[in-house]
């Protein structure tokens, strides 16, 4: 991963976690209710950026890109998919960090930073 990709990774992971917390709370309240268009627009934007970063190797599902607003995705649908993205982010991170002197470092071309 490049420095730019690591920066993107950290930003997107934080955004995904924020959305996941928010939507999970909604899902607990009413799991079968549809998510509104405003929230869905931002969920889709973050998922779309995540797809670029994850690439085909780390994307959770080959046949899922973003939610179609016409399908009225429910809170639990969105919460489930965000969980999948967070897991794949963790897999990408685990494959690109190494422990040295008791601390974790990102690996880029065999170098730690």
């Amino acid at each position: 991963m490049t420095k730019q990709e690591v920066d993107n990774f950290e930003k997107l992971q934080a955004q995904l976690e924020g959305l996941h917390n928010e939507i999970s709370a909604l899902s607990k309240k009413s799991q079968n209710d549809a998510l509104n268009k405003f929230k869905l627009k931002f969920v889709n934007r973050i998922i779309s950026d995540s797809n670029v970063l994850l690439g085909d190797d780390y994307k959770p599902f080959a046949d899922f890109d973003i939610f179609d607003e016409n399908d009225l995705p429910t809170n639990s649908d969105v919460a489930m998919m965000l969980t999948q993205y967070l897991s794949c982010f963790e897999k990408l991170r685990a494959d690109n960090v190494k422990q040295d002197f008791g601390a974790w470092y990102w690996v880029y071309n065999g170098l730690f930073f």
Partner: protein
Amino acid sequence: MFTQIPVLSAKRKVSTILKLPTGKTDNADRDYEDLMVQTMSSLLYPHLDFAQEQSRTDSGTQIRDLIFYNNRSYDFLSDIYDTYESRQLVIELKNVKVLEREHINQLNRYLTESFGKFGIIFTRNKVPKNIYQNTIDLWSGQRRCILVLDDSDLKLMGEVYESKQRLPIEVIKRKYIEFTRSCPA
């Protein structure tokens, strides 16, 4: 002047409908129709103007419909107006356990010039595959669109009416998009 029923009342009515048995036991069919008339006219307002409920007889069967004016106040409604000449939208109510081919044919026969070629059947359970295929064949052969919505769609309409996160009419639009995706290109 028409006024929508309050959210709490709609929620209660949807919940009562979902608990009703299918068929005619204890006048369940009559209760289903009465509650659906009150509920749908509110859930779909103001995107569809409720015009009237109407009883008719087809091949000896009593049928109750809801008729709405299509005022094209939403993109999906403009679409069906242009594509199917749907000036008035008919919703037929079927409190049956399993939807049959004859139920589709009854509505199809009723879709005349004043209604256009688009109609909706509300029933209780998910439409069987062969009947769904029947509606697709009808589209392929005659370019008529009959959507079948069931209790799960009604439940979602009730939930979005309460939460105001989306519009109940979007549940019908979703069904329409699913239907068009199933139709041959």
